[in-house]
């Protein structure tokens, strides 16, 4: 068994990235993600990596764009307002097929919002966020241990399919301390094969160009469509989710990250009161676990989406189910956290409303 350490979520995210082979980090201070650059600033030099505190989020993402083009595993992190600034660079990385890795420790928004944990960047993360047609591989951890282990998967997917990848977490998971166990294998970047697209020292080979544009008529379409093929492969092979007490569930809560943790407590409360509630937790937010939701809808007819936003993931649940089941929403925007009791009461109301309608129909 691996050694257990007490760490903050943000520190685990940084350490997880280093263990997954990250050797370059650029970032800018913003709460509640500051522990990531702070940790990287002393940790990367220990493993022969480089750390730069950039002048802005814009610069940070472009430093990562440059470093990624050399085939090095690299990372930038930020929190919501800073992520807005990074979107141009993420779009370019997607357009140039660069495997960058990004951590977004979400806080309240829009605007400066506040510094408490929130889930208001779901659309930004899963819809691309920047300009143009593209996708980003997005994972949502719900514990400090997952913060430490997800970078490994993110790099794996990013390099296999040449796509930007992201850990989408929030200020609560970022700031809280938990015992963490690093179970993913430690990656030695020197042992990894040099990618056949990376720019660098170019003895005895043709020149390489990393770029996101093609002005020739029809060629951009070919470029994007080639990428779409990879997106389809990711959708087929890389979906991850977790289910709790779904076997006999009549209501399924759909929640990720901190909301999923609250939902576990709500589920237990509901079970005590005799409601057959289960939890479906998407781990990859893109690709979204559509097929599994459709499968579940054969026997579960009520879904309750619980999120710390005005209701963003609920749209993905609706799109996935496409009318096959009821989709309800327990939304908590403005960087507030719902209580387990509030979620239980919503479930109770959904069940009672259902029963009344059932009686009326008879």
């Amino acid at each position, binding site marked *: 068994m691996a050694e257990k350490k007490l760490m903050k979520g943000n520190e685990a995210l940084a350490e997880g990235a280093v263990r997954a082979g990250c*050797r*370059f980090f*650029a970032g800018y201070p913003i709460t509640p993600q500051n522990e990531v650059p702070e940790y990287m600033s002393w940790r990367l030099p220990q493993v022969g990596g*480089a750390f*730069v505190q*950039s*002048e*802005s989020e*814009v*610069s*940070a993402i*472009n*430093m*990562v*764009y*440059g*470093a*990624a*083009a*050399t085939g*090095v595993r*690299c990372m930038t992190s930020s929190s919501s307002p800073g992520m807005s600034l990074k979107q*141009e*660079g993420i779009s*370019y990385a997607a357009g*140039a097929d660069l495997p960058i890795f990004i951590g977004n420790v979400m806080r309240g928004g829009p605007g400066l919002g506040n510094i408490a944990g929130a889930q208001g960047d779901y659309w930004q993360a899963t819809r691309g966020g920047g300009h143009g047609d593209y996708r980003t591989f997005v994972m949502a951890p719900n514990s400090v241990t997952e913060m430490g282990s997800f970078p490994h998967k993110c790099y794996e997917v990013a390099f296999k399919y040449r796509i930007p990848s992201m850990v989408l977490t929030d200020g609560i998971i970022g700031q809280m301390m938990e015992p963490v166990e690093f179970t993913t294998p430690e990656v030695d970047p020197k042992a990894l094969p040099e990618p056949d697209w990376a*720019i*660098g*020292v*170019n*003895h005895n080979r043709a*020149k*390489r*160009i*990393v*770029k*996101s*544009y093609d002005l020739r008529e029809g060629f951009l379409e070919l470029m994007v469509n080639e990428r779409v093929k990879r997106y389809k492969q990711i959708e087929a092979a890389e979906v991850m989710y977790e289910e709790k007490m779904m076997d006999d569930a009549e209501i399924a809560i759909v929640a990720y990250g901190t909301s999923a943790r609250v939902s576990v407590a709500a589920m237990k409360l509901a079970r005590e009161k005799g409601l057959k509630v289960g939890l479906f937790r998407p781990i990859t937010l893109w690709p979204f676990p559509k097929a599994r939701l459709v499968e579940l809808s054969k026997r579960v007819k009520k879904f309750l989406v619980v999120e710390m936003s005005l209701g963003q993931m609920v749209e993905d649940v609706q799109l996935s189910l496409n009318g096959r089941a009821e989709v309800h929403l327990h939304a908590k925007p403005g960087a507030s956290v719902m209580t387990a009791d509030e979620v239980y009461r919503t479930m109770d109301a959904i069940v009672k409303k259902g029963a009344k309608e059932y009686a009326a129909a008879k």
Partner: protein
Amino acid sequence: MQLQNKRPESLLDVKMHYCPGCGHGTIHRLVAEVMDELGIRSRTIGIAPVGCAVFADTYFNCDMIQGPHGRGPAEATGIKRAKPDTIVFSYQGDGDLASIGMAEIVHAAIRSENITVVFVNNAIYGMTGGQMAPTTLIGQKATTCVEGRTAKQSGYPIKMCEMLATIDGATYLERTTVHNVPGVIKTKSALRKAFQYQIDGKGFSMVEILSMCPTNWGTRLDNPSEATKFVAEGMLPVFPLGLYKDACAVKK
């Protein structure tokens, strides 16, 4: 017959898209000659900007990267820190470097990133069709100041070499021109020094090169001397040529 001069190996034999009388072709060639002479082609990474030189990625015979407008120095930072054994140059125009990318160039200099910046100043936005640039002269006409730039409306042209010279991290800054033969020769020696400093690990260097844009200046394409005259009489008084900083100069 003996071949006296040939295309540098660092420049590919492809048709360039630059307009007649434009200085980019000359500057590309000078950069390529320097790469050849210093023997660094096979470990050089060039960064193409957004602007007229965006297609530089297809012209230079070395690894190239093209990224967001003005962010070349940030990309260069990432590349150089990740792969310190490479030689990295960022090729940028005035809108790219002195307007949208002002923060990136200033902070690359502050950190004294060990990179070389080739800054082409032609006082206009070329690719987008002749809008006012941060280096557009007072009185100079552009599509966004049709009566000529006024200080009241748009402030004054920015002098990058002078400004960056105040930064401790800037190692080498020189302003040259390609509007005449002595200027071309001087530009090459400045570029050579800028790349040599990078090879020697001396830190941030930038060569600001005054260049022509007959198409967007509205000077006659069939009479290139109109454009070179604009550099000589319009730009030189505002952007004086010369060495602005050489932190490694041998003191005599």
